[in-house]
């Protein structure tokens, strides 16, 4: 290939007939779609009929890398997964830390696309050019940690990289995740789709290398990074010291915008008990990080005393402190640490599990779910025993766990009544701990995101930092589009979004300065913006074909009708009229049809997607 950072090869693996086809990645394709997110969006649009059931054998699980994997560039020790989600029924991607992305590059591949369904439990083993379909019958039913351990033992190489699903994935829990080491491609149920294919794990090892285009300029960029990063307190001291739990104080206390008791309030009176400071002081064991990341925001925490003494986890991170903590009304860090590791081990997303549990708690408290339906458990807010116990039951789909395994949106439809009002999700994906009511950008962001309630489509960080007024309506659509472009490029490079404080909350020319020395594309800023828009339009087109249009770009009634009742952000919310106004402007700026939210032909042609316009028939 002319460009660096690519191996020029994507493997199409069919589990039904065990056939492997190598697809060439051309220079033009790499330049047009960049990697990770872009590659997967294009392949999925071409390979998957978006109307199929996510568990259909024809659904594809993509595991992708970008040009940044395997090289020494900060925060790119990640890999990217995508599929049609069983939770949102649309295009879905999830990015996780792990050296497996680098190993894929070292093995000479840019990505793998898995389709079909194995007859029996199988795991994929990739060692350079060797691809094996190995039996996973002995691994079926095992949790993620043990599964990784057993595969490494069988191979004899402690350095083998393994991404595995847990029992939750096997039992098609709609928010089952994929775990590598202790990090998760958590959201949207990629693990469940793997489970539906009888695919327990993917193991990769490579003996090759990955390179950059221009060493001199790359070194200059690294030197620039080393100096500049020290000027950003969050990256220089905040994240390395406390990790993301530092946000509990800034979001929970300062802003009063940390969803609590299933978003009945956003002021968690016990915030101090689950704060980053307390975690660091009483529970910290050591720092860890994703590969190639000097920030190392991950921490190992242990409950050193109390009811859950001995519980150890890599995490919890801020989102889990919100979902298993403030949302469930639980302020015992020991329970949250145990819940965090249990979700990892059984193989499910902590955010969706916690928000679904808090949904059940509210329904139970309001008498909409009787004790009969909750297996006789007193499923009230603050019941940490129930929160912990139902992780395993959800993974096994036992009793009430079977309902929780559907996620909050489907569960609310099964429970009935007016419960969908307080199923806190957008497009079926549960909200993370960044308020849709206290941050105007996140209201529009969640509503318009391909994935729905994800904080990695539109980003909240700029509004926290004051770069965009969190109450403003004017100018917000342009801001949200900018942050979505930034995350799309990040997910295509497969790089963490935390560098946004250094490189820009929205897409900026600083991203071009970082990409060009590595790839040799010599992108202009305008071309990079087009790459982002191309990828976002492809995702949108996938969702349109799956039946999602403007009417799906909305938020739950609680978010649109109930102001935050107390605390520093008291009274804030985005009503339906304001959201509609922002949506109108958003679609115009995007070049999408205002009435339907479908990309227009003119826009698609402009970003080089004429064929997509033909398929959409616009």
């Amino acid at each position, binding site marked *: 290939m002319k460009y660096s950072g690519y191996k020029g090869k994507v493997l199409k693996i069919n589990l039904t007939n065990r056939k492997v086809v190598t697809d060439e990645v051309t220079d033009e394709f790499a330049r047009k779609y960049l990697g990770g997110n872009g590659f997967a969006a294009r392949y999925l649009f071409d390979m998957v009929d978006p109307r199929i059931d996510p568990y259909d054998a024809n659904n594809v699980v993509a595991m992708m890398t970008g040009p940044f994997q*395997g*090289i*020494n560039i900060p925060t790119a*020790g990640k890999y990217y997964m995508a599929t049609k989600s069983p939770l949102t029924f649309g295009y879905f991607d999830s990015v996780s830390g792990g*050296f497996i992305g*680098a*190993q894929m590059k*070292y093995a000479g591949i840019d990505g793998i696309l898995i389709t079909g369904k194995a007859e029996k439990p199988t795991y994929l083993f990739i060692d350079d050019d060797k691809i094996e379909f190995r039996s996973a019958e002995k691994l079926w039913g095992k949790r993620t940690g043990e599964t990784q351990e057993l595969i490494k033992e069988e191979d004899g190489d*402690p*350095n083998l990289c393994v991404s595995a699903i847990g029992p939750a994935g096997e039992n098609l829990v709609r928010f089952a995740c994929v775990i590598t*080491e*202790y990090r998760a491609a958590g959201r949207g149920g990629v693990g469940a789709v793997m489970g539906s294919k009888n695919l327990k794990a993917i193991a990769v090892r*490579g*003996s*090759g*290398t*990955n*390179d950059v285009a221009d*060493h001199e300029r790359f070194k200059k960029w690294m030197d620039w990074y080393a100096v500049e990063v020290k000027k950003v307190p969050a990256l220089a001291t905040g994240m390395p010291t406390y990790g993301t739990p530092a946000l509990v104080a800034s979001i929970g206390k300062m802003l009063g915008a940390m969803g609590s008791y299933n978003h009945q309030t956003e002021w968690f009176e016990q915030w101090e008990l689950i704060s980053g400071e307390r975690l660091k002081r009483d529970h910290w*064991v*050591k*720092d*860890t*990080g*994703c*590969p*190639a*990341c*000097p*920030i*190392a925001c*991950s921490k*190992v925490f242990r409950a050193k005393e109390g009811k859950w003494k001995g519980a*150890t*986890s*890599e995490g919890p991170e801020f989102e889990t402190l919100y979902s298993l903590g403030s949302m469930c009304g639980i302020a015992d860090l020991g329970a949250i640490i145990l819940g965090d590791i249990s979700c990892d081990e059984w193989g499910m997303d902590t955010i969706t599990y916690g928000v679904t549990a808090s949904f059940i708690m509210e329904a139970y408290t309001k008498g909409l779910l009787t004790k009969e339906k909750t297996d006789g458990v007193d499923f009230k807010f603050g019941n940490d025993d129930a929160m912990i116990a139902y992780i395993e039951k959800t993974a096994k789909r036992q009793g009430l766990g079977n309902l929780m395994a559907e996620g909050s949106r489907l569960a609310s439809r099964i429970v009935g009544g007016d419960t969908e009002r307080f199923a806190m999700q957008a497009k079926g994906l549960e909200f993370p701990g960044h308020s849709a009511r206290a941050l105007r950008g996140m209201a529009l962001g969640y509503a318009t995101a391909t994935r729905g309630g994800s904080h990695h489509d539109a980003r909240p960080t700029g509004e926290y930092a004051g770069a965009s007024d969190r109450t403003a309506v004017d100018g917000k659509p342009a801001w949200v589009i900018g942050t979505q472009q930034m995350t799309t490029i990040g997910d295509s490079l497969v790089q963490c979004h935390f560098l946004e404080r250094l490189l820009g909350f929205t897409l900026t020319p600083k991203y071009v300065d970082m990409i060009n020395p590595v790839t040799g594309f010599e992108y202009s800023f305008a071309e990079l913006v087009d790459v982002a828009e191309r990828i976002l339009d492809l995702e949108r087109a996938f969702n349109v074909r799956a039946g999602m249009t403007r009417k799906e770009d909305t938020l739950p009634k609680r978010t649109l009708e109930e102001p935050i009742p107390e605390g520093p952000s008291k009274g804030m919310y985005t009503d339906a009229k304001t959201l509609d106004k922002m949506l109108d402007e958003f679609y115009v700026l995007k070049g999408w049809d205002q009435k339907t939210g479908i990309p227009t032909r003119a826009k698609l042609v402009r970003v080089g997607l004429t064929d997509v316009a033909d398929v959409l028939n616009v």
Partner: protein
Amino acid sequence: MTVVMALEKKPLIRFDMNKCAFCKICELSCAEQHYGSYGEAISRITVIRKNFTLFKCFICTRCDKRFCVPACPKNALSYRHGDIVVDERLCDSCGDCVKACPFHGIKLHPKTKMPIICDLCDGDPRCVKECPKQALSLIWLQQTRK
């Protein structure tokens, strides 16, 4: 580092498991330093993670016993100025040195199949410099080399 100093004292790259964050920047820097490229298989230092807190680091320790040198059937390895030096004309890539090293400090380069062993980057090890957590340090043991 002067040659005299190297001969008088024994250098060691010390690994502090409690500080290591398993970021592998040492491995990536090592590969870049020696080959201008990036890859785990061409790194002379290797860090593995066994569980939450148990991390291990493998690198040539410059041990006094030097198991690798006599293990070579072609006499391709020798000990010079504190480093294990490979004579690539003699080496036939049998891998006996790799097996002989109890510290897992030797790998075969995946392409050239030649043994790759830490050379301390001429006394200023790149891995030590780049470690963001100061988990690696170059120390000089107060003992003369045997």
